[in-house]
C-alpha cells in the first residue's frame, strides 16, 4: 500500500513464530481440556440437550481456531513491520486486514520492554508504547534490539511539543 512512502521495513525476530505456535498450542490444549471435561460431565450427568448442541458448536469453533493458530503465526510474522525515527513510530501489521499506524514520537508517554517465560526462552522481548489515547505493542524482538529500541523511543519521546 503505502510502500512508496518509506513504509516501515524492520521485521520481528524470526523466533516469534515459534513463540506464537507454542503459546497458541498451550492455549488450545487448555481449551480442549476444558471442553473434554465439559463433554464428560455432559454425558455423565446427562445435561439438557441444548447444552450438548452448544458444546458441539464450541468444539467446531475451537477446531477452526486450532487450525488458524497453525497458520496465523506465519502470516503474522510475514506481514509485521515496524520502524522508529525521530518523528514517528510506524507499525504495519495484519495479513487479512492490513493496518498501518503512525504515532508521533512526541505523543508517546511511556515505553516499556516486557519478557514472559516463553519470550525469555528464545531471548526475546516485547516493546510496548503508550500514548495519550492508545497503546501499541511490538510483540517479539531480539532482547538487545528491544532494549535499544526502547531507549531510542524514550529519547525521542522526551521531546515535548509546545502545546499538547
Amino acid at each position, binding site marked *: *500500500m*503505502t510502500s*512508496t*512512502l518509506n513504509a516501515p521495513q524492520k521485521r520481528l525476530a524470526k523466533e516469534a513464530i515459534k513463540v506464537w505456535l507454542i503459546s497458541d498450542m498451550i492455549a488450545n490444549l487448555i481449551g480442549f481440556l476444558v471442553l473434554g471435561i465439559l463433554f464428560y460431565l455432559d454425558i455423565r450427568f446427562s445435561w439438557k440437550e441444548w447444552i450438548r448442541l452448544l458444546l458441539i458448536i464450541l468444539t467446531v469453533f475451537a477446531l477452526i481456531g486450532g487450525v488458524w493458530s497453525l497458520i496465523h503465526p506465519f502470516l503474522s510474522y510475514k506481514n509485521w513491520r515496524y520502524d522508529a525515527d525521530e*518523528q*514517528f513510530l510506524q507499525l504495519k501489521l*495484519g495479513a*487479512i*486486514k*492490513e*493496518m*498501518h*499506524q*503512525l*504515532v*508521533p514520537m*512526541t*505523543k508517546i*508517554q*511511556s*515505553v*516499556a*520492554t*516486557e*519478557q*514472559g*517465560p516463553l519470550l*525469555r526462552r528464545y531471548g526475546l522481548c516485547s516493546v510496548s508504547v*503508550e*500514548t*495519550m*489515547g*492508545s497503546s501499541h505493542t511490538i510483540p517479539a524482538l531480539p532482547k538487545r534490539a528491544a532494549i535499544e529500541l*526502547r*531507549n531510542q523511543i*524514550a*529519547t525521542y*519521546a*522526551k*521531546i*515535548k*511539543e*509546545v*502545546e*499538547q
Partner: protein
Amino acid sequence: MTKKRRYSPLVMLFEFGKLGKNSFFFVVFLYVIKADSTSLFITYGRIIFLLAVVLTVFSIIYQWFTHRYELDDKSFHLYKGLFNKSERIIPFSKIQNINRRAPLFHRIFNMTSIHFETGMIGDNAAVTFKVISQKEAERIETFLKSATKHNEVYPNDGFDVPPVEVGHHAPNRIIHFQSTRKDIFKASFTSLSFLILIPFIGSFYFKTNEIFDVRHTAEGLFERMISTWWAVAIIVIVLTIASVAFGIVKTFLKYGNYEISSDSDYIYISKGVIDETAFSISKERVQAIEIEQSLLKRWFGLAGVKLTSVGSLSSGEHKLEVNTLYPFLPVHKAYAMIADILPSYTITKEMTRLPKKVFWLRMLWPSWFWLIVTGFLLYFKPTILKLEQAWLILSVVLLFWILGVRWLDFFHTRYRMNKHFMQFMQFKKGVLKTSLFISKREKVIEVNVTRNLVQKRLGLASIRTINRGKPIRHAGVDDVPIEFANAFVKWYKDRENEVTVE
C-alpha cells in the same frame, strides 16, 4: 541519577492496612453476624474470603519484592515482575502534574505519598509512590525539576483560566451570538421538546380513567365529555397548545439569554434565564470542531457546533471536555462564527465524495444482521396479525431499511484534506443526523490506515485520525481511494513542519 531502589517497606504496611479496611465488612458479616451459622453458603464464603486474603497478602509482598524504580537524568524507570519482567520508561517531560498527599497513616510515620501524573489514561497513567519518606519525595521532585528546568512542568501550565463573571463583560470581548426570540421558537420546534408532554398526557389519561373508573360509571361526566367529538377536539387543541407552550418555556429556560462571546484567547458562553451559568474555553486547547445536524435541523437550516477541548491542567485535574456552543445556530451563522471565533480554523464547504464503486460495494456487502434475523425468521416463521407470510415481509422490510441506511450513509459521506492555508482534515458522515468533523493536523495525535482483502482488491482504504478528548476521539472515513490514503499518510508525516518543540 540514582540506583535501582525498592519502594519503602511501609508500602506493605499501608497495603495491609487497606486490605484490613476493605475486608472489615466481610469479617463482621462472616464471623460476627453469622458466627453461629452452619449454612453451606457461609462456610464457602469463609473459605473464599480466607483464600482471597492469603492471595492478597502474598501479592502485596511479591509486588514489594519485585517492583523497583530508578531515575536517570531524563526519565523514570519502573521495574516489575519476576517471571514476566518489564521495564517501563517515562520521560520527565511527560509529567504534567505532581500531587503530594499525606493522610493520617503517612503522618504517623512521617511519610508522604506522591503522584507524578502524565497525559495517559488508565492504570499506568501516573508514576505513583504510595508511601515514601518526605526526604525522598523532596529529592525526586527537585531532581525532576532541575532535570527539566527550562520547560517548567509544574504547576504553571501557561493557561490560567480567567475568572468568568456572569452578567457583565470585559471591554475587549466581542459578542458573537445572542439568542433572540425567533431562535428560541425555532429551537423549541427542532428539539421536539414539546413531545415531552405526550407521555405525561398519556399517563394522565389513564390515571383519570382509573380515578373516574370509566367502565363502571358509564354515566360519569368525564365519559360523557370524552364521547362527544367537539369535546375531544377541544381537548386535543388545548393539549397541543399546552404542550407547545410547555416546549417553548422549557427551551427558553434552557437556551434563553444565551450569549457567545470571545476575546483573543478564550471563548465565553453564558446561558440560562433563572440560573445563569457561564464558562470559558481556551481557544488554544480546542482539539476538534464538529458541526452536527439532525434531520429536523437540516430542514430548518440549523446546526449545532461542538468543540472538543482539553481543559486547563493547572487546576490539578485532567479535564477533557466536549462543549456545545449552541445547538440551534442557523447554518451560515455557525460557519461565520467559527471563522470569527477560531480564525485558525477554516471550513471548506466543497468536499470530495466517495467513488462510485464504493456505492456498489456498500450495497452488495453482506449484512450479517439481516442474515441472522432472516435465519431466525425462516426457522420460527412467526405468524403476526394472522399473516403467515409475516416473516417474509419482515425480512424484506428489514433489507430495504438496511439498504436505505447504507444509501444515506454513502450519500452523506464526504472528506477533504486542506493543504493550502492551514492543515486540516474534514470528515462528514451520518445517516439521518450528519456530523462534520474538522481537526487541525497538529492536534491529531495518531493516524492509521487499514485495508481488508476486498478493499485491497478495489484499491480502497479506511483512514482514521485520533484526537484527544474524553473519550479519545476517533474519526475517519471508510473506503477512500488508496491514492488519497497515501496522501493522507504523507500529509500527517509532514506535521513536523508546524509543530514546535520546547
